[in-house]
């Protein structure tokens, strides 16, 4: 039943490794970008607030597929931006990370914003009463608590991001969904086995993430 896997024709582990790498790099990128966005959205400068709000609302309502395909067609093929990638595969990989980061950052921003909302107003008032500046209030008092409160929504974003990496197949990044497409075409009689393998792979990727972060959320929750 699994003999087509032994042929050495399909690099199953390699494909899932690319998926994991896509998820990891995009997760780091969107965490940074999302934090920057949320800082803009709560900042005292109206222009930054406006930019943050506009960016989040526009990008969140655009399908990820459009973002990623536009990265490939628009940035790469039209504007010849390669992000330092040397070959087709590398460029696709980097563009996918760019697209995933631009898209997922908005959800990280929203998760953090809901985390900020859980911090009692008295905390910020007390910090201000101590003479802290906005940056100090945000980075020393509010954000650390917001992150801990936002672990559960952030975990959901991470799980969704892991599943969203499959969209990179649209620009031929060599990740799991792309390999599955190829395998479905070649091994039509083993259709259900192929689907089972990939389904299992994604459950393996997302389940530990959810369990670990669920545990972490309980552990780190700010007891009030």
């Amino acid at each position, binding site marked *: 039943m699994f003999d087509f896997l032994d042929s050495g024709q399909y690099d199953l582990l390699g494909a899932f490794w690319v998926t994991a790498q896509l998820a990891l790099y995009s997760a780091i990128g969107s965490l940074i970008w999302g934090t920057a966005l949320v800082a803009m*959205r*709560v900042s*005292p*400068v*109206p*222009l*930054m*607030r406006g*930019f943050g709000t506009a960016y989040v*609302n526009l990008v969140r*309502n*655009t*399908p*990820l*597929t*459009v973002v990623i*395909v*536009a990265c490939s*067609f*628009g940035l790469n*093929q*039209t*504007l*010849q*931006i390669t992000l330092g990638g040397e070959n087709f595969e590398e460029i696709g990989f980097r563009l996918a990370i760019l697209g995933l980061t631009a*898209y*997922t950052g908005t*959800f990280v921003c*929203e*998760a953090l914003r*809901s985390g*900020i909302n859980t911090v009692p*107003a008295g905390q*910020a*008032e007390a910090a*201000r009463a101590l003479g802290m500046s*906005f940056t100090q*209030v945000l980075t020393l008092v509010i954000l650390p608590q917001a992150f801990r409160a936002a672990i559960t*929504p952030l975990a*959901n*974003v991470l*799980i*969704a*991001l892991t*599943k*969203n990496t*499959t*969209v990179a*197949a*649209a620009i031929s990044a060599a990740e799991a*969904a792309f390999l*599955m*497409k190829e395998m*479905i075409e070649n091994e*039509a009689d083993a*259709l259900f086995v192929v*689907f089972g393998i990939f*389904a299992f792979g*994604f*459950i393996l990727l997302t389940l530990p993430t959810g369990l670990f972060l669920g545990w972490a959320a309980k552990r780190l929750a700010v007891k009030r």
Partner: protein
Amino acid sequence: MNSVLYDVPGPKARRRNVVYTIVFLAVLALVAYWVLSALADKNQLAAEKWSPFVTDSQVWTTYLLPGLTETLKAAALSILIALPLGAALGIGRLSDHRWVRVPVGAVVEFFRAIPVLLLMMFSSAVYAAYTPVSSDLRPLYAVVTGLVLYNASVIAEVVRAGVLSLPRGQGDAAVALGMRKGQTMLYVLLPQAVTVMLPALVSQLVVIVKDTALGGALLGFGELLSQNRQITANYGANTIAAFTVIALIYIAVNALLTYLAARLEKRLRQGRKAAAAKDTAPIVNVEMGGASTGGL
């Protein structure tokens, strides 16, 4: 909550804010300049690349509107099938019988863990191999099937959370009145839960609309996104313009849905305020879309 983070700006803070504004504006202008000059270099700003969307109605009637119709058709079909299916699964998960609860739970968790794209590709292959569905209808079927499997399980969770969020006394009172389990669910619990979860359900629509684009990119489904190839082929490589217009249409549709969801939520909250004994917070269901996300 924003204003809590900083004081009403005094003269010094106001000056500083002006400086920040100018710096930020300069950065934005620099990025915009860089983008625009890059676009101009590749001749993407030329008027003839953009003008078809304003002057030539054919680009709309031949490509964009039919594409949008397909997108909305797939989204509408998916929600119409996923809604009752999801409600059934959600109720199944709340069943008193282990043999119903456990398998339904497994199905829901399984389909929630799988990326929508894999479900679409799989169902496309299944339709091709085992059913007589014609090849021009197959992409639509595959997209709808994938979306239904995924979103029904998400809706199941929403329904479950909605029913569980109701005060226990509601079900107890129904039992005390002699209602059967089915009656309790159908006449007492579900109608109340629906009002709590309606906003979450409408937001799920946004996710579905966004996810239809997967079918266009990978399954040859003729939805809105897939029209960019035809437009750029017929109107002189206006890639950037085509993507901009397509993205704006998606944004407009989804912003409209979000707006409707917000209105609905407001109305329902007002209507229920008097009746609700406990302030039932709306279920926050951050769906992300794309291959999931919604999950989030």
